[in-house]
């Protein structure tokens, strides 16, 4: 899919209205037009698959913990490992996007982490379980390439919406997996007839293959920028090739990046923590059965369908009237409310109240994430995303 094969740069026509940098000024959700909307769909689907893989283990833990003889401590450590690897991977990913372009950076990372998911099927001890969850978690760095790609493809007017939707629908994977994995597992267990301890292993091939296929889709169907891929644009001189240490230096000396990193840690970090523990929380505290706990856990992550994109859209809406100040104030208010609701969740004692508070809490914490990424593209035009994630 190399547009440049046939057309000169000035003759290129885009399906969507574009600005002077050829970034789309409109966001049409149901379009698949190259390059803008196709990039959107490729990025959210691949990010979704990474989330499905990273959180594939929690819903199957009742089986896995018996098979691998895990203790509660082992499970907790594996959960932390699953999300902590992404911290450094995301920093590296930002730089990789600046240097190689989001298309190559994301498809590479996805293919590098797919083996961790395949090898989860043959894990045989608590240590092995921790390792596969740790390396699978690196795939969450595709978030950076998703946001970078959207920021390259969409103009400031709609970038909040694009970022919020792609990030939110990707995060949806964390909720969807709580429904997908038990379903796949029970299909394998009852219809193919494998024993419990074999069925969960086979089940892991599903997210692994999905992840691999999404990497292929990105590589063959996507392009880095509206005008083409980095490698072609750099060689032909249309794009300046950045230097790694320059990029990194300017990123880490930008104070805005650090502030946003802190606030994001306390909305997205909280969201991931909840993803890891919410099923167990309901199971232990209210003695619901595992299926019910899984459904409740899924609904937390599934709120991402509208809540994170809602945050992004809200950011764009207030920006029209109040500019950057509006974006920042709205972020502050929404995240504060999310914080209070989190405190409240720990205090309520009945099952119904807990579920209600959890659902409202999920909307606010995820909207705060969406609002954060309405601000991020404006931290620095050149060195977009290295520091924040």
């Amino acid at each position: 899919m190399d547009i440049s094969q046939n057309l000169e740069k000035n003759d290129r026509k885009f399906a969507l209205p574009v600005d002077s940098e050829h970034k789309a000024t409109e966001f049409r959700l149901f379009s698949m037009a190259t390059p803008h909307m196709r990039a959107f769909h490729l990025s959210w689907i691949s990010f979704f698959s990474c989330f499905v893989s990273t959180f594939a283990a929690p819903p199957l833990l009742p089986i896995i913990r018996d098979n691998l003889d895990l203790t509660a401590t082992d499970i907790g450590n594996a959960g932390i490992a699953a999300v902590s690897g992404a911290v450094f991977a995301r920093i590296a990913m930002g730089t990789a996007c600046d240097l190689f372009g989001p298309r190559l950076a994301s498809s590479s990372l996805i293919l590098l982490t797919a083996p961790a998911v395949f090898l989860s099927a043959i894990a045989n001890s608590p240590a092995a379980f921790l390792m596969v969850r740790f390396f699978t978690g690196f795939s969450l760095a595709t978030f950076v390439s998703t946001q970078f790609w959207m920021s390259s493809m969409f103009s400031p007017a709609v970038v909040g919406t694009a970022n919020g939707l792609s990030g939110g629908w990707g995060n949806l994977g964390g909720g969807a997996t709580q429904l997908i994995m038990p379903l796949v597992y029970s299909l394998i267990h009852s219809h193919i007839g494998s024993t419990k301890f074999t069925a969960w292993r086979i089940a892991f091939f599903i997210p692994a293959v999905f992840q691999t296929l999404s990497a292929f889709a990105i590589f063959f169907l996507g392009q880095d920028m509206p005008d083409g891929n980095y490698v072609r644009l750099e060689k032909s001189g249309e794009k300046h090739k950045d230097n790694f240490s320059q990029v990194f230096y300017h990123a880490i000396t930008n104070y805005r990046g650090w502030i946003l990193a802190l606030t994001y840690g306390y909305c997205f970090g909280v969201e991931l923590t909840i993803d890891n523990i919410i099923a167990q929380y309901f199971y232990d505290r209210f003695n619901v059965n595992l299926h019910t706990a899984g459904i409740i856990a899924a609904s937390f992550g599934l709120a991402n369908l509208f809540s994170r994109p809602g945050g992004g859209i809200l950011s764009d809406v207030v920006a029209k009237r109040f500019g950057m100040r509006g974006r920042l104030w709205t972020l502050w208010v929404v995240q504060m409310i999310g914080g209070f609701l989190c405190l409240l969740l720990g205090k309520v004692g009945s099952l119904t109240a807990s579920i209600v508070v959890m659902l409202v809490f999920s909307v606010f914490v995820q909207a705060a994430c969406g609002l954060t990424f309405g601000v991020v593209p404006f931290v620095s035009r050149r060195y977009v995303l290295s520091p924040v994630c």
Partner: protein
Amino acid sequence: MEVPAGFLLVSLLLFSFAATGYGITFSSLPRSLVVTTSPTQGQVLKAGEEQITVTWALNQTFPAGTDSAYRTVKVKLCYAPISQKDRSWRKTEDEMKKDKTCQHKIVSRPYSASNNSFSWTIMRDIPSATYFVRAYVFNAEDHEVAFGQNTNAERATNLFEVQAITGRHASLDIASVCFSAFSIVALAGFFYMEKSKGKASQQK
């Protein structure tokens, strides 16, 4: 008409609790059955392959008529304290509804005072852990009324281990490794293709 409605509600709740056996505690159950099992202390048995034989009978030292309400016996495989440590999903609770000590059913039989025996092949989904055997006796309303176990009150004697299947198969191992290798090779392919595209546009 508030008082009668309230009374109705409370008595309805009480009846429903009574019907569900709400609130039966383990500590209230008499240990009126004697249970013995074939494995010796510390023996390791393989799931899916080896058998255990359980025998149970009424403890004759109890007064006659103790077993008048006994209808069914359910024999279960239960986790020993060492396998419950740091695993809250196997926790022992006094309230029977919340207790998670005995999660694996061995057999269910109508009650008879003696001559009860059952040989059980350890199922393939039993996890690796240390176990003992407990038999619960149920009355006609399906509530626990008595129990017996092959270990002492502290659950420290006559414990045996089960070694579970791994669930792994050679075909799974091979598939896993092959797919992983394929991903890496595909990645190398991507880089190669990207490089040659770059060269091609440079030559233009």
